[in-house]
């Protein structure tokens, strides 16, 4: 297990005190502190985590989207899209995970934190590209990983693994064309969730 300079339980209390009513949930699991905030408090909470003594998270290490729609084979209740950030404090040697759920499933909107951490820029572009999460206040929200002119958000759970279009060279037209995919996703190993204590492993 990875050792930290600051005890996760102590960090949990510090963060809970710093955020006060802004934190919906603060917990420690597997030695990692997770904070969940409401979409309305997201930017303010990020600023507090960045500035407050005892927090001082100078670095946004990672930011990504998660689509919870099929989590636990449909047992998920709650908002569909979540933005998860991993923060690191170099001065205090501690980490925290910051989660925020977008309130609207059809048009997920979350405030941008590029003003707090410049590194959020590309990460938010990526989450927009792959999940269609809109970051309000981001000044350059373009697609980043997918092709020019790509349609859809490929990491959403309702987007097929094989995609919708494929590219090939057409000898007649003498150019590269797009056409509907000719392959089908082939899943050899089914996805299974076992009941609790199956096999006595956990």
């Amino acid at each position, binding site marked *: *297990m*990875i*050792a*930290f*300079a600051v005890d996760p339980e102590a960090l949990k209390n510090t963060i809970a005190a710093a955020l006060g009513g802004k934190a919906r949930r603060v917990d420690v*699991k*597997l030695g*990692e502190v*997770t904070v969940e905030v409401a979409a309305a408090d997201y930017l303010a909470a990020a600023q507090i985590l960045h500035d407050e003594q005892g927090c001082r998270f*100078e*670095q*946004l*290490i*990672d930011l*990504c989207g*998660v*689509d919870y729609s099929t*989590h*636990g*084979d449909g047992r998920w209740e709650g908002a569909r899209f979540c933005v*998860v950030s*991993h923060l*690191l404090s*170099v001065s205090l*040697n501690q*980490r925290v*995970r910051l989660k925020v759920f977008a309130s609207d499933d059809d048009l997920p909107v979350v405030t941008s934190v590029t003003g707090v*951490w*410049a*590194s959020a*820029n*590309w*990460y938010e572009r*990526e989450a927009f590209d792959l999940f269609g999460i809109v970051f309000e206040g981001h000044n350059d929200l373009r*697609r*980043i*990983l*997918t*092709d020019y002119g790509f349609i859809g958000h*490929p*990491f959403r759970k309702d987007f097929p*693994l094989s995609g919708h279009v494929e590219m090939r060279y057409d000898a007649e037209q003498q150019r590269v064309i797009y056409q509907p995919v000719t392959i089908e*996703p082939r*899943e050899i*190993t089914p*996805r*299974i*969730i*076992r009941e609790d204590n*199956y*096999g006595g*492993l*956990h």
Partner: protein
Amino acid sequence: MAEIKNYTINLGPQHPAAHGVMRLVLELDGEVVQRADPHIGLLHRATEKLAESKTYIQSLPYMDRLDYVSMMCNEHAYCLAVEKLLGIEVPVRAQYIRVMFAEITRLLNHLFWVGAHGNDCGSSTILLYTMREREDLFDMYEAVSGARMHAAYFRPGGVYRDLPDSMPQYQVNKIRNARAIKELNSSRQGSLLDFIDDFTQRFPTLLSEYHTLLTDNRIWKQRTVGIGVVTAERALNLGMTGPLLRGCGVAWDLRKKQPYDVYDRMDFDIPVGKTGDCYDRYLVRMEELKQSNRIVKQCVDWLRSNPGPVITDNHKVAPPAREGMKSNMEELIHHFKIFTEGFHVPEGEAYAAVEHPKGEFGIYFVSDGANKPYRMKIRAPGFAHLSTMNELARGHMLADAVAIIGTLDIVFGEIDR
């Protein structure tokens, strides 16, 4: 006098200085860069989406194909994340083997970096020197895993197999005669550990050759000193990690600060720079080569005298030994289940990071209790580093943009994922 307008040029997607498939749109005022807009994603293979439809073991080899210059370090983060979710212990010998190969990988990465960066800045000689050493390191990979690059050697719970007792030998061929082959094989007479030990003794001399070629070289300094300067505070805000952050004088290294496996038992130093320019980052990486070599040596000494298991005996996670599988019904069932259904990971989420040669490489898993991850996110250091390109290159000459791409140490396998 003619009116001078800003000029937009397109660098790539195929360009030797772009280190892969990157399209860089540069806005120039004369020869001075005003804005650099990297277009990435040309190598995007949706590794994270693919992992959602594969079991935990099936997606491990994808890790090698992320940063294809430091393969085993990617696997390391993946295994640590899975182990964290499963809550399993890894045998000490396996931890030492992992640390040793993580450092061999760091040597591989930094050697390639110094060669390629030197080549970008006009010194092709260094590239040939570093490729020579990489050959020996690839032989170590091959001896232990059978593959020279995409090893798939680290597994959740340990490593795939123990270190071999003999090294493969070169055969006489059309290109090399018997005497040359004998010389090549001279360091390969003993076990893999003997070969690695021999390398660690040769390497400091080789490293001093690189220093002779570059460190005090006037042209090299003209190309790198004062280029791409970034302050420590800004580097943190931009998400820089690894040698880029240390080049600015921040002594931050996960191997020391948040040690994983047996790094806390290793004796090594963290080099830091002062000014945060390309030259400092070069010096930091060169010193890291020396320190990695020290760690490898310590691992070799420990591994020689401490035999033991190299993978967990929890057969729900790691396959049983071949012999047991052939003679024991229960082991056979374990073997069958692990290679058909895979293992189930408890519901939860975990993030595990390693000090990858390029910076902090992390894997974030969201599991819902299935045999496949619900969501996997790869935190690639190169992604954050390339996003700083605009800020680093602004105000520099076009030729310096190439030096800055070089110093960021980018590999598109991990940036585009």
